[in-house]
């Protein structure tokens, strides 16, 4: 018998996974290159949010969860131990942080490529680009 907390958490997780699936369909089967770029951004966002969800921690008492930032400027050892108990996992956050910025840079590169393709071929539809020669 699962409790309500796990049930709601699983709903959240599965919605994100369905998002992953839908955006994967968009990346693979939509003919427009611009639509592919939009789908790719949604795909990377969903992948990032999955990583963050894995670092989440169950609440033991209500209100006992905190971001991984120590607020006390002069902590004792007990304060640090207590902080390590209530804070969420900082490692996925640190990885996702750089992934978002690099994702934007890569998307910009893809945008420039799409623009160049449009200048030379006059279309952004992959089926028509595949038929063109030269």
């Amino acid at each position, binding site marked *: 018998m699962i409790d309500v907390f796990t049930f709601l958490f699983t709903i959240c997780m599965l919605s994100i*996974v369905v998002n992953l699936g839908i955006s994967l369909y968009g990346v693979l089967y939509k003919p427009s290159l611009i639509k592919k770029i939009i789908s790719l951004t949604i795909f990377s966002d969903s992948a990032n949010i999955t990583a963050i969800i894995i670092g989440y921690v169950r609440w033991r008492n209500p209100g006992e969860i905190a971001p991984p930032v120590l607020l006390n400027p002069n902590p004792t050892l007990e304060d640090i131990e207590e902080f390590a108990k209530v804070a969420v996992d900082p490692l996925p956050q640190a990885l996702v*942080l*750089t992934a978002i910025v*690099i994702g934007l840079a890569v998307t910009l590169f893809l945008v420039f490529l799409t623009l160049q393709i449009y200048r030379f071929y006059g279309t952004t539809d992959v089926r028509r680009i595949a038929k063109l020669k030269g």
Partner: protein
Amino acid sequence: MRRLLGLLVIVLFITLFALVIASGGLGYEVPPLRVRELARQFLIYAYNPFNTTFTAKSPEAVTSIVWDFRGLDTLFETLVFYLAIIGALSLYRGVESERRTEVISLGLSPIVKTVTKVTTGIIIAVAASIALHGHLTPGGGFQGGATAAVAPLLILIVFSKYFLENLGLRKNVLLALRSIGLLGIGMTAFSALIVGLMANSPAYVFQNQPKPDAPVGLPAYIGDSLISGTLWFFNFFEMFAVAAGFTVIFLLLGIPEGEILKQLKEEAEEH
């Protein structure tokens, strides 16, 4: 038929993921009752005055992971960012945008222009506070840089591309600014090593606080304020690199399409 096969694969993917979650692939308690052991170590050593061997002297665990515990990762991620920007720029080689001084008639209505003038100051202030306070409160170089990059974009959209260039933010200036940022990151990474060589004691690349076998390091405090050694400098330079790198791309995207097509045609005729 191919589309049906693809749909089937995607449905299988979702089902497999659901199965993995249901059968305990993320641990049998979803979400877990406590953080994993590695994360616990990071949380304990991020700001720990009692253990000077491993601490990063930064109360924010994320920034201390990004620039201290896993600093080399972030350095190479910055390299990927740099290469993506360079790749985008190389597609625009040889394209020159014309200068214009008469820019009053371009852009949106005067109400929006006035509000944007006020807002740009707020944006720069928020970006600076996010980046320079990144080792104490949530924030850091990437956040501050992404925030600061929206200000030139807003000016480009509300006024015009020419207004932004008349302000002095031209392509070469921005490229120089970005290079200064990247150079600063490199210099900060080597600073502890240089200090160690001068003091004739062992030191490492990307070293922040003194270690038992390498007693040199950058100071955690200047006066009374906590700067966490190298972290403040990394955040500062990263903000410049990210903001200038994105702005140069927007400047190129803002060139009107007719001009580029004309230049491409001239280039084709020359060959």
